[in-house]
Structure formats: structure tokens, C-alpha cells
């Protein structure tokens, strides 16, 4: 063993030295590598950004071009229509012969449009595999409101498969009475109920929305909107609400109350108390939000009087 000490020593020293210089070089290299990586990343990022920007620019160009083409097409179309004043038939000499597909697609769109118009009549629908799905639309005057669906099975007997009619509408009762014998009558009566309900709700909403300053808080109503209770005054400037009204809608197929009980607080001036009968009469004959228009104006003078 003793014959090799110098060699062993040398080896040990060499190893130490190697480790030393190796450390320095490696860390240097690592540093360089990191820098290069960072640079590459940055470069990549800018490249990506530029690419994205270029892509966006190209897209904008493309869209602008398409917009201009389309605009030109629309302008041309308008000009042609104005020149011809009215319907262009396919027999017009300069019209290009439309393809059969175009003709059929035109027909499809016009049938679709006519089907949509049925929505305005109050009853629309479509045939299903096992029956018909009806849609009952509702409106208050010219404003169309909610639509309700009724999916009917027609075989072996007429049955309601699914529906979106609110629970407080006496659907089951009506179905029992008419569904098997007269579907048309059934839908017509159901539509009366739905239209009347939606009409009452619409009037109450309008009143709340337009005349909230004349109402004491929110008006109270039940879900069917056939009982409404509210306290009110006739001029929004007042902080007191001397009148209170209770409207009862006895006929569920109508949106005007059958009974309107109006009372006045005992401390109110006699001039106000004398008007309760007139108010009650207006409520029974005029839509709620319109009734407020007509009962408020003459009263204002009275309120201001000393």
C-alpha cells in the first residue's frame, strides 16, 4: 500500500482542482444558459405579439372588406327596389333565374313568417309525433305578454302531457269540462283565463311603476291578481294616503274588477270623503293605470286649497 502514496495524493489534489474549476465553469455556463433562455423567451414573446397583432390586423382588413362588399350589395338592392317600386317577380326580364334551392328557401321563409303571425292571433302551435303542442299567447291591448305552452297527446284520448300554465289557473277543472269534447272551446276558455290574469297583472305593474309616489308602499296582490289592496292619494306631493281601495275581480275571465271598495280615513276633509263613490266607479270601468290618470288631476286643486 505504501508504494502508492504520492499517486493517491496527486489524485486527490486533481480531483479537488477539477471540482473547483468545474464549479466555476458550470455556474457560468448555467448563467449564460439562463440568459439565453430568457432572451429566447422574450424574443418568442415579441414574435408572438407581433404575430397576434398581424393576425388581428389581417382580420380587421378582411372584415372591412366584407363589410364594404355587403354594404355595396345592400345599396344596389335598395336602388333596384326603389326603381321598381314594389315586388320583383321572377319573371322580370333582367332578374337572374333563381335556383330551385333559392325558390324553396324563399317558400320556407314565407311559411315560417305566416306561422309566426299565428302567434299574434293568440293560438299557435305545431304538430308533434303524438299530438299537438299549442302555444297560447297573451296580450294587453297592443302589447304582447307571456306565452304558455300546452303539449297535448291525442291518442288514445286527449291528454295534457306537459304544460307551462301557472298552478293558480284552474287548468284541471277546464280540462275536465271541455278537453274530451271540444278542444277548441277548451283552448279558448283557457286563453280567456290567461289573458285576463296577465291583463290584471299588467295593470297592477303599470300602476306600481307609473304612480308609485301616489301609493303607500307596494300594492298587495295575490298570485292570481284577482284581489288588489292599496292605499293612495290623489296628488303625489302629499305624504299622507287618505284613500284605501280593495279591488275584487269576481269574473276570472275579465281584467276589470267586479267590486271596488274605496274608503277614506276618518280625519280626511269631507271634500275627499265625498269622492270615494266616484273613485269606485272609475276603478270598475277603466283600466287601473288609466283610472289613476283620471282621478288625480281634478283632485290636485282640492288638495292645494287651504
Amino acid at each position, binding site marked *: 500500500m505504501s508504494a502508492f502514496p504520492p499517486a493517491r495524493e496527486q489524485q486527490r489534489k486533481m480531483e479537488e482542482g477539477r471540482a473547483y474549476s468545474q464549479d466555476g465553469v458550470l455556474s457560468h455556463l448555467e448563467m449564460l444558459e439562463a440568459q439565453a433562455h430568457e432572451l429566447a423567451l422574450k424574443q418568442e414573446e415579441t414574435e408572438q405579439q407581433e404575430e397576434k397583432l398581424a393576425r*388581428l390586423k389581417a382580420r380587421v382588413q378582411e372584415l372591412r372588406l366584407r363589410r364594404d362588399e355587403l354594404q355595396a350589395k345592400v345599396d344596389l338592392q335598395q336602388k333596384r327596389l326603389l326603381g321598381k317600386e314594389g315586388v320583383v317577380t321572377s319573371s322580370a326580364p333582367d332578374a337572374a333565374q333563381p335556383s330551385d334551392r333559392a325558390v324553396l328557401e324563399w317558400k320556407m321563409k314565407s*311559411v315560417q313568417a305566416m*306561422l309566426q303571425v299565428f302567434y299574434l292571433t293568440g293560438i299557435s302551435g305545431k304538430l308533434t309525433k303524438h299530438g299537438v303542442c299549442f302555444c297560447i299567447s297573451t296580450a294587453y291591448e297592443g302589447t304582447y305578454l307571456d306565452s304558455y305552452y300546452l303539449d297535448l297527446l291525442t291518442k288514445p284520448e286527449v291528454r295534457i302531457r306537459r304544460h307551462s300554465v301557472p298552478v293558480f289557473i284552474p287548468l284541471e277543472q277546464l280540462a275536465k269540462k271541455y278537453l274530451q269534447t271540444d278542444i277548441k272551446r277548451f283552448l279558448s276558455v283557457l286563453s280567456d283565463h290567461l289573458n285576463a290574469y296577465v291583463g290584471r297583472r299588467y295593470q297592477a305593474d303599470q300602476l306600481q311603476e307609473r304612480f308609485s309616489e301616489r301609493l303607500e308602499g307596494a300594492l298587495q296582490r295575490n298570485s292570481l291578481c284577482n284581489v288588489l289592496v292599496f292605499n293612495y292619494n290623489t296628488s303625489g306631493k302629499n305624504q299622507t294616503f287618505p284613500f284605501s281601495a280593495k279591488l275584487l275581480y269576481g269574473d276570472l275571465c275579465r281584467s276589470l274588477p267586479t267590486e271596488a271598495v274605496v274608503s277614506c280615513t276618518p280625519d280626511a276633509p269631507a271634500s275627499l270623503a265625498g269622492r270615494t263613490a266616484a273613485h269606485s266607479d272609475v276603478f270598475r270601468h277603466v283600466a287601473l293605470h288609466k283610472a289613476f290618470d283620471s282621478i288625480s288631476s281634478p283632485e290636485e286643486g282640492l288638495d292645494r286649497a287651504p
Partner: protein
Amino acid sequence: MENSIYQVYEDEIQSLEEEIKMLAEKYEDSQQESTFFSDEEILMSMKSFQTEFQGELKGQESPSDLKAQLESLEADLSFLMKFTGIWFTSHSKKTVEKTGSRTIQKHRLSGNCHSLPFQLEFQLLEIKSKESVSAVITDLNVIMESGEYSGVSKFVSSTEEHGNLLPFFKSLSSYAEWYEHRRCTFLHFKTRYPDIVKLPEGLLGDYIVLRNPEPSGFELMIVWKIHVDEDGRTTPVLDLLTKVPEQVLEQNITTIENAPTCFRSMLLLFGIETAIENLIKVVGLKK
């Protein structure tokens, strides 16, 4: 900073896309609205379409799909017309204004409700929101031959005033059903009692005359009007008018005077058909 550069472009892209969509819709709408094909043309296209495209064009909907779709839509439409009794014979619309979610269209619609012809013009304002579409009817104009259907004129003007399109269809249907019912009833009695029942204005008139076949026989006139009130409720109103020769009148003065009142209570008790039937029998028996 960098993000804001993108933002400028992205915003422009979005607004361009919206603009393109609107223009495309406008083009499509006008194209649809300004074209018209007759039923023959459509039938021809339907026939040639299927042969022409056989084995061609995989990307587009196949001809049979398009045809099936069209047929199913037409089946829906004809079912609805039959069911409701409202037959649309022509419909055209024109987009007046289209901005974002707001669309105003002018519609012209004509058709028959059972046997009654009608024509409508109105504007439809539609506002699309995320959940639903709200629709409002304005400028409603109802054209009906009001001379012939005298009962409806008041109702028609209140319909126009309030834009009451939905109740209009309901009441028109019920009016038309009564109208049809009256025609059938008159026809029934005319066929059954041809010697007694006279129809001076034909089956579509609003009265019949019951005349005893004998020369001095007396005459009863039943006037059957169909009344539609401002709220659109339809009610039949029947009245009895008497035209009696003097010698008959002398004998039965009270009976004749009471006849209209009796007729009214008979209507309430037995209904229209039985009440008329009874009158006919009385007229036939006399003398």
C-alpha cells in the same frame, strides 16, 4: 399598454362583425320581402330540385331534408288554419327599421275567418332581450266590408284604437261562427218548410219571413242580428216583427201583441232552433 393595442383591434373586429351581421340580415330580409314566387313556380322547383341535386353537393343540406322541412312547416300551417278557422291568404312584411335589438316591421295580412274576409295592416315593434322578445302592435288598420257585417263596425273601431289585435281574432272567430250558424239554421228551415219560410235577402241576410201560404195569411219576420260589443263579446240578438191582416188582428189582438215577448222567453227557454220551429208550426197551422 400592449393589451390596449390589442383591445383597439379586438373592439373594431367586434363592431365590424356586428355590422356585417346586421347588413346580412337586412339584405336577406329585403330579398325575402321583395320577391314573390307563385305556387306553380314553387311546385316546379320542388320537382326539379330533387333530380337536379341527386348525387351532388355533400356539404349543403340534402334536397330531401329541405323538402321534408318545408313539408312539415306546411303541415303545421294547414293544421293551424283548419283548427282556428283563420285562413291567411296573403302576408307580406317590410322591415322599416332595424337597430340592434329593435325591429319595426310593417305587415299586411289578408285572409278569411271561416267565411268572412278580412284585411289587416299594422306595425309590429319587436325588442329582443336575452330571455325573450317583446312585441307591440301599433297603427292597426282593419279593413272589412262593414256594410255587410253591420254588427262589427263599433268593435272594429275600438280594436283599431287600442291595437287589440289578439282579441280581434278571437271575436272575429266567434262572430264568424255565429254567422255560419245563422246561415245553417236558415238553410235548415228553408229546406224543411219551403212553403212557409222565405228568405228575401238570401241565406246570408239577417232575417227570414214566415208566411202562411193562404192569401190572407199573416206574416212574421224574425230578425237575427249578431252583435259584437266594444269589448268584443258576441251575442245573437233575435227579434220578432209581425205583419198581420186586419181581420186576423181583430180576432187575436192580444196574442199578436204578445208574440214578440213570448218569442223572447221561448228563446231563453228552448234555444234559437226550437223557438223558430215552434213559430213556423204556429204560422203553418193558422186558419
